C-alpha cells in the first residue's frame, strides 16, 4: 500500500495522472487489497496449533494404540473433507489461493494416511502402488476442483513419480535382462505423463478453470522438454549400447519418440492456433530427439548438436507463437551448450595462456551474439498467448 501511495503521489506530481484518476486507483486498490497481515497471523496461529497437536501425539506415540492414532488421522481427514464440501465453493470464488491450499492439505493428509496404515499394520508395498491408489482417490477432486498452480503441480509430480517408481520397480523385478519388451514397457510408462499436454490444452478451452488446465499442460511440457534435454546431454556422455537395458535402448527410445510425436500431433489438432502448433512442434521435436539420441550417443559433437537443435527448434517455435521469455531462455541454453561444446572439443584450450585468452574471447563472443539475438528478435512482451 505504502509503495503504491508513494508512486501515486509521484505520478500525480509529474502530471502523468490527474487527481481523479489517483483517487479511483486508490479506491480500486483498497477494495482489492487482501488483509495479508491478518491472514498471516491467523495462519501462524493455525500452524502452531497443528504442530502442537502433532508433537503431543508424536511424544506419546507408543502410549497411543495404533487404531486410535489411525482414527485420529481419519477424523482429521473427515473434518478437512467437510470443510471443503461446505466452505469450498464460496472459498473458491473469493479466495482461490486458500482453496488451493486447503485441497493440497487434504490430499497430503490422505497421502500420509497410507504411510500410517503401513506403520500400524507393519505392511509394505512398492511406492508406485500407494501413489497410484492415492491418485485414484484424490485425483478426481484435484482435477475437477483444482484452480491453479498448486493442484496442477501436485498432480503432475505425483504422476511423474508413479511412472518412474513403476519403471524402476519393473526393472528390478524382471528376471530377464536386456529384454526389448521390458524396455518398451518402461519407456511407455515414463513417457506417458507427456500426454497431459494435449489433455491440458484440450480442457483449457472447455473448462471454466482455464488457469488450472493450462498449468497442468505447461508442467507436463516442462517434463517432456526436460527429459529430452537430459537425453541429449546423456547421449554426449556415453554410448547407450553399452548401458544394459533400462529405457535407453533402441526400442525404449523409439517408444518415447512415438509418445512425443503423438502428443505433439494431438496438441496441434485440438488447438489449431500459432501457440497450439508451436507447443505441438516442441513436443514432436522432443520425440525426434529421443529417437536420434540412440544412434548419435557416444559422440560429444553429435550430442551437443542434438541439444542445440532441440532448443533452436524451441526458439523458432517461440518466435512463431510469440513467447518472449521462452525464446530468450532457448537462445541462452543454446549459447551455454555451445560454450560447453567448445571446451569438450578442444580440451587443451585451458592448458596454455593463449588458449585461455582464446576461450575467454570465444565465451564473450557467444554471449554477445546470444544477447543480441535474444534482444533483437524476441517477440514483444505480451505478444503471445
Amino acid at each position: 500500500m505504502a509503495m503504491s501511495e508513494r508512486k501515486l503521489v509521484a505520478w500525480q506530481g509529474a502530471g502523468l495522472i490527474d487527481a481523479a484518476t489517483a483517487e479511483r486507483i486508490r479506491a480500486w486498490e483498497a477494495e482489492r487489497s487482501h488483509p495479508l497481515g491478518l491472514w498471516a497471523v491467523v495462519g501462524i496461529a493455525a500452524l502452531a496449533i497443528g504442530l502442537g497437536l502433532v508433537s503431543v501425539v508424536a511424544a506419546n506415540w507408543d502410549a497411543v494404540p495404533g487404531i486410535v492414532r489411525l482414527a485420529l488421522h481419519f477424523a482429521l481427514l473427515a473434518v478437512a473433507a467437510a470443510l471443503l464440501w461446505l466452505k469450498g465453493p464460496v472459498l473458491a470464488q473469493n479466495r482461490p489461493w486458500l482453496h488451493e491450499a486447503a485441497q493440497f492439505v487434504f490430499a497430503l493428509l490422505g497421502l500420509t494416511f497410507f504411510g500410517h496404515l503401513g506403520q500400524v499394520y507393519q505392511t509394505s508395498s512398492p511406492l508406485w502402488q500407494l501413489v497410484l491408489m492415492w491418485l485414484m482417490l484424490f485425483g478426481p477432486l484435484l482435477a475437477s476442483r483444482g484452480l491453479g498452480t498448486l493442484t496442477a503441480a501436485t498432480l503432475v509430480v505425483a504422476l511423474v513419480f508413479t511412472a518412474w517408481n513403476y519403471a524402476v520397480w519393473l526393472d528390478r523385478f524382471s528376471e530377464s535382462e536386456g529384454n526389448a519388451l521390458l524396455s518398451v514397457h518402461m519407456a511407455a510408462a515414463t513417457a506417458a505423463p507427456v500426454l497431459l499436454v494435449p489433455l491440458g490444452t484440450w480442457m483449457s478451452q472447455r473448462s471454466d478453470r482455464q488457469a488450472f488446465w493450462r498449468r497442468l499442460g505447461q508442467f507436463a511440457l516442462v517434463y517432456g522438454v526436460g527429459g529430452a534435454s537430459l537425453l541429449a546431454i546423456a547421449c554426449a556422455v556415453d554410448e547407450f549400447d553399452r548401458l544394459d537395458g533400462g529405457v535407453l535402448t533402441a526400442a525404449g527410445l523409439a517408444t518415447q519418440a512415438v509418445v512425443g510425436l503423438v502428443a505433439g500431433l494431438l496438441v496441434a489438432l485440438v488447438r489449431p492456433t500459432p501457440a497450439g502448433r508451436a507447443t505441438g512442434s516442441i513436443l514432436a521435436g522432443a520425440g525426434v530427439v529421443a529417437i536420434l539420441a540412440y544412434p548419435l550417443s557416444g559422440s560429444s559433437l553429435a550430442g551437443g548438436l542434438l541439444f542445440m537443435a532441440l532448443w533452436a527448434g524451441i526458439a523458432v517455435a517461440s518466435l512463431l507463437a510469440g513467447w518472449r521469455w521462452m525464446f530468450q531462455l532457448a537462445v541462452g541454453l543454446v549459447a551455454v551448450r555451445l560454450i560447453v561444446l567448445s571446451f569438450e572439443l578442444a580440451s587443451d584450450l585451458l592448458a596454455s595462456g593463449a588458449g585461455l585468452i582464446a576461450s575467454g574471447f570465444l565465451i564473450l563472443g557467444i554471449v554477445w551474439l546470444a544477447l543480441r539475438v535474444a534482444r533483437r528478435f524476441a517477440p514483444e512482451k505480451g505478444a503471445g498467448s
Partner: protein
Amino acid sequence: MSRPAWRVLALVAWPLLGLAGLWGWTELRSREGTEWLVPVSGYDPRDLLRGHYVQFQYDWPGVGSGRLESDGIGELCLHGRAPKIDSVTPAPTGAERTPECTNYARADDLGNYVPTGLLRGRVYVSQDEGRKLEKQLADPRLQAMVRVRLRPDGHLTPLALSFRPRPAEAATGE
C-alpha cells in the same frame, strides 16, 4: 441441495470411502494366517535404526542365512506347531499348500536375483522404542525373537520383537 453441492460432496467423500475401505481390508488381511516366533539377530549393527524401523536378520532353525543367500532361496517350509518352529527346510518352487509343506513361507520379493524377504525383515517402531530394541539386539545374553504372521498364501509379516535370556553356554560361546 443443489447439483454442484452434490458433486463436491461426492468428490470429497470418494477419497474418504477409499481410505476407509483400504483400512478395513488391511485390518482383515492382518487377521489371516498363523503367528510364529522366529529367532533373529541384529542386522548391520552400525545402522540398526534407520528412522522409524529396526532391521534384523532371520536365523531360521536348520537353514543358515548364508545358505539362503548363496542359493538364492526365497521359499521355505516351517515345521512345528504355531507359534513354535521345530525346523525349517527349503521349499521346492511352487510347493505352496502341498501336504508336505503346510506352512509355506515365501519372500515378498521372490523373483529377484537374490530374494531377501526371508533373509531380513523390519518392524516399524517409534524412535524411543527403536533405541531400546537396538540395545537389546546387541546384548549377547539375550535371544531376540520376532513374532511373524504367516498368511496361507505364504506372505510373511513381521509384527513385533521380543527377547528372552539365552542359555548360559550359548552366551559364553559368542
